[in-house]
């Protein structure tokens, strides 16, 4: 554009700036539109997928888990709200809500026996027993998702890893490092002795007894004095499946 002096020139320059600005906005808009379109495509493809495989998602825990991963990759959370497309299409918002409620019931019922600490495997098995006869099978993955929803509701549920096991804690009491080490050791035989802690962890007996007494007070451990060697055993229900002990189980 030719620069022209005088007021006319200024007006032209202003007009030119306006046009550039409009063009710039257009470009930005085009980019955004493109992105939105891409996302919309992703979303609709995901919805198509979900619609087509609704039954599989409902019935098959492994498939369901993979579906969740796929959603996460695209930034979609089917559980984000109980209303809306996903909840209606899959009804899985209700599914996890239902599991969550059942998990709370189970943990409450078992609390007197395990202090509020239960291993994920046992929890899942109790959940399956509770849901016997219902169409939808549940996996440990489902349990974890339901529990993470519970956490969001501020219910004090926490999943912790101790040694090889995942434990679900339904009471506010937190375990410190010493406690964790004890519970990890207990996974071998279901119990520990003060001797064992002194030997294997090189603790003083004071330290061992302190930690064990706390775990006992909290209801996470039970004592067993039935041995002629006089050594008290501290058993940890959270590392066993105490609800299904048969004649030959540890």
């Amino acid at each position: 554009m030719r620069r022209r002096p005088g007021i006319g020139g200024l007006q032209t320059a202003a007009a030119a700036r306006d046009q550039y600005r409009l063009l710039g906005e257009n470009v930005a808009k085009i980019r955004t539109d493109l992105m939105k379109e891409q996302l919309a495509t992703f979303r609709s493809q995901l919805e198509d997928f979900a619609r087509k495989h609704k039954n599989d998602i409902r019935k098959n825990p492994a498939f369901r888990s993979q579906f969740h991963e796929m959603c996460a990759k695209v930034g979609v959370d089917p559980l984000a709200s109980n209303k809306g497309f996903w909840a209606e299409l899959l009804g899985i918002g209700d599914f996890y809500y239902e599991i969550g409620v059942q998990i709370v019931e189970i943990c409450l019922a078992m609390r007197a026996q395990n202090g509020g600490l239960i291993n994920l495997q046992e929890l899942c098995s109790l959940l399956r027993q509770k849901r016997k006869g219902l169409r939808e099978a549940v996996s440990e993955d489902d349990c974890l998702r339901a529990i993470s929803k519970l956490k969001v509701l501020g219910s004090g549920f926490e999943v912790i890893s101790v040694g090889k096991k995942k434990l679900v804690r339904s009471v506010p009491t937190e375990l410190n490092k010493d406690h964790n080490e004890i519970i990890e050791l207990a996974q071998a035989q279901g119990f520990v002795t003060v001797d064992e802690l002194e030997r294997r962890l090189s603790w003083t007996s004071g330290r061992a007894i302190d930690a064990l007494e706390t775990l006992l007070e909290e209801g996470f451990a039970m004592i067993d004095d039935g041995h002629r060697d006089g050594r008290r055993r501290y058993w940890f229900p959270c590392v066993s499946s105490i609800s299904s002990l048969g004649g030959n189980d540890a």
Partner: protein
Amino acid sequence: MQTLGNFKLPPFFNYPPYFTLQPVRDTREKQVQLWKELILDYCKTQKISVIGLEEEFPLFSNPAIESKDLFINLCISAGSLTHEAREAFLAALVSEGRAEWLDKGHRKCLILWHRIQDWADILLNFVKDNGLEDSVMTVEEIRSGPESRGTDLQGVDRIILMRALKLLEHKGKLAIFKGTSADDEGIKFSR
């Protein structure tokens, strides 16, 4: 599932710490509750009415727990309730009216898997179902006669039966009198 004869044992029976009286209050409460239920259930299905604390009672020890221990150490008493524990569980039953001590030393305990009042009701139904109003029967006939077959009254412990009968006598539902033989009493049911 481990069984004692044909009785299915609950899972806690295989968890060693349940055989030691727990010091922590909440844990102890749960332990006592589980043992109370087990004792009542077992006695009811096996029709046992008296437990002697110093005698062998299958519920009070779990040999499966013991034998596992033989490989670890040579202890024998691993899965056996101490006298103190037995007394604690039975005392809990006594305090809720589901058992009674038969002696001051707490060595024998009468188990009321039906309360005496419940036994009285069962007797009243027994009278009604068999049209026994205004008739006479001996105590022994009540517990071992054909009418009691298949009911809870069959083989019922005499002590319990007499208690229930006395309760009903007190309410005027029947009269107890000495029978022809030295050791058997007769019952006349009211109309």
